[in-house]
């Protein structure tokens, strides 16, 4: 008979694609795998020990050989041994796991940022240069990439097994994850949090490319408008510039250079202005009133999509002076010019046409 040809085909395919663990395609993967192999070996040792104990006792003390049981009460020393040794191992695992956790969720400062919006049932990636992708993500190798992710509807979870990274994508809140791909190639993106009917269709591919290829790809897929430019348009069309004009008499706070700074709110608390803060301040302005200003800003909840919010956040991020805002008064059409004040962020390379 021999092995069924169909099954044989499966086996060959499987052994070729991935054997017992996925490929290591990011700088994080070896660290995760190290902990994994440590855990697997400790588990195997433990399991084998327990199994051997059971087998040995079963053979040695089976009724045929040992007809009368000897009553033993217990042993404090033994109890202490198997309390302390597992506890010590578990504590090592805890510390190791904690270190790994912060390695995975603490992005390096020079990471380039890409936005990801999850919705039923697709992933939408938005590069700062305005390149949009659906269920795909192009990234350069050798460069830390940070994803700033948000969901438009329900919980999703962004997972790239070959990079060993995963993070829940939550409605109403930015979550981030970062990685640095090491090998060019294509890898799976999965949504791992059950998100409704086509959950299993919410998959995509991440394409890791050499920096040169990546640059080529960016140029080819340029839509003509960067996120910040889109944001500038929205900023004007939604009338944000009326108050946030940067003038001394303006009714809203000056936004130039606000990103990354600390502002004081009316209740006296100090907050760091980051993506999440900017987004919240647009949607729930009365909870984020800067000290010295009246709480007059209306909410934009329901009037602006998550993509639009990302555009505006990106625009404010790059706003170093109020020049562009002033420009929006004189020309309604702002798409001829790009922001004139590039920031130091490494992603600027890709933004410039």
């Amino acid at each position, binding site marked *: 008979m021999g092995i069924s040809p169909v099954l044989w085909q499966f086996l060959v395919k499987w052994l070729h694609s991935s054997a017992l663990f996925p490929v290591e395609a990011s700088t994080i993967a070896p660290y995760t795998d190290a902990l994994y192999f440590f855990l697997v070996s400790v588990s195997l040792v433990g399991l084998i020990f327990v199994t051997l104990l059971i087998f040995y006792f079963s053979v040695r003390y089976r009724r045929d050989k040992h007809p009368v049981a000897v009553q033993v009460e217990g042993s404090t020393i033994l109890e202490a041994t198997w309390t302390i040794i597992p506890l010590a191992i578990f504590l090592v695992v805890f510390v190791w796991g904690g270190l790994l956790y912060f390695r995975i969720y603490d992005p390096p400062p020079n990471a380039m940022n890409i936005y990801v919006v999850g919705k039923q049932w697709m992933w939408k990636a938005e590069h700062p240069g305005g390149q949009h992708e659906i269920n795909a993500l192009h990234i350069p190798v050798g460069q830390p990439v940070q994803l700033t992710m948000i969901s438009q509807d329900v919980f999703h979870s962004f997972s790239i097994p070959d990079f060993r990274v995963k993070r829940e994508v939550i409605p109403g809140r930015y979550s981030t994850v970062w990685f640095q791909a090491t090998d060019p190639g294509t890898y799976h993106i999965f949504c791992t949090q059950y998100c409704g009917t086509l959950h299993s269709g919410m998959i995509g591919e991440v394409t890791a490319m050499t920096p040169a290829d990546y640059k080529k790809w960016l140029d080819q897929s340029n839509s003509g408008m960067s996120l910040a430019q889109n944001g500038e348009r929205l900023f004007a069309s939604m009338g944000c510039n009326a108050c946030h004009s940067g003038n001394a008499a303006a009714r809203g706070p000056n936004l130039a250079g606000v990103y990354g700074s600390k502002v004081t709110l009316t209740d006296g608390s100090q907050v760091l202005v980051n993506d999440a803060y900017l987004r919240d301040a647009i949607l729930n302005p009365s909870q984020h009133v800067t000290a010295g200003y009246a709480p007059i800003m*209306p909410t934009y909840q329901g009037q602006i999509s998550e993509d639009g919010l990302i555009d505006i956040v990106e625009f404010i991020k790059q706003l170093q002076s109020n020049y562009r805002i002033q420009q929006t008064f004189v020309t309604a059409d702002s798409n001829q010019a790009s922001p004139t004040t590039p920031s130091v962020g490494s992603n600027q390379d890709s933004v410039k046409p």
Partner: protein
Amino acid sequence: MDNTVATEHPHTHETAVHVEHEHIALPQHRHHFETVEQQREAGSFGMWLFLLTEIMFFGGLFFAYLLYRNWYYAAFASASETLSIQIGTANTAILITSGFFMALAVWAAEVRKKKMLVWTLILTTVFGVAFLGFKYDEYHAKWVEHHIPGAHFDIKDFVNPPINPQTHKPIEDPISPDMAQRTQIFFFLYFAMTGMHALHMIIGVGLLFWLIRRAARGDFSAGYVAPIENFGLYWHFVDIIWLFLYPLLYLINRHPMH
């Protein structure tokens, strides 16, 4: 098949005083309890355990309240002011009174005063129903004001509070529209918490009717007080929930600065 473990019945050598607990079957004595006392202890312990689950049941609601009150304090303060503090305080007093009569009922049962037991139970019920009546009145007012969360909710009272004719000032501080939307969360929690509480009250009143009937029949005037006692625990527990709901829901911010 007898078990040889049972070499001796524990109570066979007992003094005559206690024999009545044992072998003269009291009507309430369930066969699987060794003694009436054991039955009574088991019942009371069971009731306390049930109240334990009730604490955890309300615990989830209390946590949700705590979280959102901190997040949306302005909305909570503003929405809380639309609740009638008069009715709220009166209802607190009414419920305490109801609880007081319940406590007296337990005493009456213990000292075997049948008439007093029936009357205190009736008064407990009356005050309980009065509480529910006021509660209905409050709910109705919320309905009229469009303060029931959902499709018909209206935030205008919080964005543009009505003007007080005497002072010509708004009766409360206006809040921004986005914050005003959050009053829905307050009212949702208000209805969920007081609604759950009222549901417990309604169940309690139902049980009270049953207890009154049995008390009038004389069931609890011969030393058998466990049902009254255990119901008392339940009724007092419902009181306690309200003792917390009252300050949390009605008294968030009753001293506006204007």
